[in-house]
């Protein structure tokens, strides 16, 4: 993987205002069951603007479920999620999709890039979905890829990229539309330790520099170390004393 410094400026992304000041997402009494399995059993969580929050826990503890509810992907059986004054948990699917497209970015462990598209096209997709012209979207995406040190890879397709490069392209795609919150689900889960470190450094530096709130799900303590605080989910609940 080519190492590079975190971008000092991100095209199209407004600079941070006052990170860490106000609650951005507030979740209260979240319950969700998959059949007879209760994935979440009364979770309360507040995420402040501009902070980096790590959600930790063992496999099957409900941490990914919590992330998906916070991001408006899943709807809780009970409880509420309020984002920036909007009650996500009562929105319909289309409204939640629009919110995700406009306000949130996502990074996953693997398989998130469209394999048929070049790195540049992959990054430009959120802008096109948002209605931007192709020319402008490509220009902004190219600039962002350049700032992530990926200019030489812009015409490569995902199968031609290394794991670290692919994750950085995914990160660029997640950030290109200027989200206020970035949700990352095991973003380094498929990478070696060196690549993991480089990706997390870039991720942390970028979100800190521009006041983007980062919610990262991980079971890796080294990844969690980049967070401002961490919560541990176990058996569908946040263990008391762990929300700092």
């Amino acid at each position, binding site marked *: 993987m080519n190492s590079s410094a975190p971008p000092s400026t991100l095209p199209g992304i407004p600079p941070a205002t006052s990170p860490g000041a106000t609650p951005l997402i507030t979740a209260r009494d979240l319950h969700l069951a998959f059949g007879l399995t209760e994935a979440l059993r009364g979770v309360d969580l507040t995420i402040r603007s501009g902070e980096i929050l790590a959600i930790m826990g063992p496999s099957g503890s409900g941490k*990914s*479920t919590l992330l*998906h509810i916070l*991001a408006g*992907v*899943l709807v809780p059986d009970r409880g509420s999620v309020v984002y920036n004054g909007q009650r996500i948990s009562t929105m319909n699917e*289309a409204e939640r*999709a*629009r*919110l*995700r*497209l*406009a306000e*949130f*970015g*996502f990074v*996953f462990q693997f*398989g*998130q*890039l*469209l*394999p*048929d*598209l*070049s790195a540049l*096209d992959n990054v*430009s*997709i*959120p802008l*096109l*979905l948002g209605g931007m*012209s*192709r020319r402008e979207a490509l220009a902004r995406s190219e600039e962002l890829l350049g700032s992530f040190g990926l200019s030489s890879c812009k015409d490569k*397709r995902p*199968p031609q990229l290394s794991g670290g490069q692919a994750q950085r392209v995914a990160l660029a795609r*997640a950030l290109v539309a200027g989200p206020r919150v970035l949700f990352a689900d095991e973003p380094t889960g498929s990478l070696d330790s060196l690549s993991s470190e480089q990706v997390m450094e870039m991720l942390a530096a970028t979100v800190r520099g521009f006041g983007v709130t980062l919610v990262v799900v991980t079971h890796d303590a080294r990844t969690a170390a980049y967070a401002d605080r961490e919560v541990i989910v176990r058996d569908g609940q946040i263990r008391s004393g762990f929300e700092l």
Partner: protein
Amino acid sequence: MKTLACARLLLAHDRTSLLRLLGIVCGVAVGTALFLTLWGFAQGLTTRTERATWPDYATDGTAGMPAGELTGELSSDQIVISGNSAVLYSSLADHFLDKRIGVVSIAATADSTVAVPGAHPLPGPGEYLASPAAAALIAEYPVEALGERYGQPAGILGDEALGSPGSLLILRGMTLEEIREQPDATVVSSLAGKAFSTSTFRIAAIVGSIAILLPVLLLISIITRLGAAQRSETFATLRLIGATPAQIARLAVLETGVTSLVGAVLGAVLAWAASPLFAQIQIDNERFFASDIQPSLPFALGVALLITLATTFVAWVRALRSQNTDLGASRELMEKRPGLWRLVPVLLGMLALVGGGWLSSNPVMNLGVSELLFGALFVAGFAAILIGLVLAGPLLTWWASRFAARFSRGAAGVIAFARIRQHPQATFRAVGGLVVAVFVASFFFAAITIAHVEEEGDGRDSQQGGAESSSDTAGASERSAVGASPDLLHASLSGGYTVADMDAVQEQLKAADGVTGVAPVYYHERPTATEEGSNTEGEASGGAEAGPSEGIAVLRARDAAVLGIPEAEVPDAPWIELPPRYLPSASVPEDADPEASIQAAQFADSSELRPSYLFVGYDGDPLMRERIRTVLLTSSLRLAMVPLTIAEMRDDGATDSFVQEYAYLANLGVLIATAVSGISMAVSTVSSILDRRRTLALMRLAGMPHTTLRRMIAAETLLPLLVVFLLSAGLGFVVAQLLLSGLTAGRRSVIFSLLDPTYFVVLALSLLLATAAILATFPTARRSTALSVTRFE
């Protein structure tokens, strides 16, 4: 690794895998059943034609000698051909209400050994055997309407004499002397039909079968690739834990082999068992005997085995080719950029058609070049083009996607065109069946414009021997008999009568129930050009009944009203010349004046008149018409043919064309091919979504709306479809032109002005079907990319 144990382990408790395999089994079963059923229809049509045409080939003069050459008292010694026993034989087409009844008259010497299809034994003089349908028809109506025409019933004709269960056929016994007087009576030593009168029709049938069956094979090919991506991930994981490429290939062979075998055997049994049901489908208004379209069980199982072997072999090759790493990574298989070589089969096919055409029209044919060679060239050329179209499709799709990608603006377009560019074969596979169906439709509809030419009276390539003359007659009737009343039976007389005889007949017939008028029409030989001078009026009339020897048709002025001639147009004379528009003659010149006025006929003596037609008007009641027809047929009048109305003559011409019959099959084939292709397209499109479900679900998770997903699916499907749609339609026309021109040594070509409007309906239907197939995939695409997929994939 124990392959069987491993396969069981992989499948047990995996509902998705079991469903996929079940889908393959069902798809292969449907494909195999369709293949065998269509094959059965193609074979059935051949068998049916061969059986149904036995009455035709004995009368065209090629199989025997005219009975008119027999003289004196007839005996067994005279009725032989090349030392073989023979029979006297004649056939004609009778009509009853709106039905045609084939009537074969036959007379044999006592020691004749000629086998007559379906007659065991032969009916004696004055007796008849009827096909089951004809017997039922006769029983349904009063004997004076129909039954009396043929004599005494003596039994039922066997199925081996009939084209279909609904065939109306009468085998009538006569004495040797009676049948000798029949028009077209022939001495024949054998009675057998032909499936194909020429190699041209045999080639056309083979080409048609290939065109109909290929889309079905495409369907089977697509079905067996269901869930290919999911399976390749499983195999990749097995490689990771130590399986060798050969072991993986064996697993793929086992999985595909077993599912294909089960599906193909099920399909074969289904086709075999359902053939009595399919036999009820009518082609050219005729059902089939189930035995004609039913594949034999060994053949059906043989086809099932072949399909199994083919799909298994392909699965084995695919599995071996995909195992290029032992890292276990589920990296997608890269498709190679389609090469220009993909155009070669189409070009070679065109070359073969052009070459075949050259051979068929070139004098080199006379130097001993076998018809088999140019026939093989046509069949091989057509097959190469059809297969070549499927091969060339990905290249054309790739070119089109590169072009379209430059202009794509939205996310759906960018994703779709990139997908097509990277997977031209996979994306074309989705529409390949429909593209082939459009090619086949274009080819058939262009080729069957020849059938319209046949209908118009140009019967040079007519399959049935009798069709040519009746077709000609019908065409001429349309030209000439426009002025005649529809409620008029035209009886053509074979001669030997005087005016006085006809006057007597006229009086007798007038007394019959339902008869509104009787008009004998006579033929009078007009003076030739060297004799002209005294009789200029005949020439001025436009030359009615002009033929090899010029003549005019005349009738008594008092009978003009029977033909519907207004009284004001009738000159004040005892005899008038009859203009061609009132005659059902085949020999009316095309340039005859349709508005020619009616002139008084001049001749020296009525003994110069030869009775030619007897026109009998009736009160419009169809059953009364049949009674009158029976009276005419059972009278002592010597008729050249069965008395017919103008509408019946036209009907004869319209239904006799062999090409028209194949056109029905072609239409049926196109409809089936289009429907099958629509199913293939839906299956393939869903399959391509399933292969990318995780990525697309993640995109949806990130906010991609459903509309983008729908647009993406539409673009991925429509681009290759539209590009190759136009090309395949054009290619269909070109191939039809090359084939028609080649098979007829340049005498025939596609006539675009005669293109059946149904063609455009089929094109519209294809596009509609494509749209329906795309729409049908939307709910599945939505379910398959549900956000929960990202959690459980």
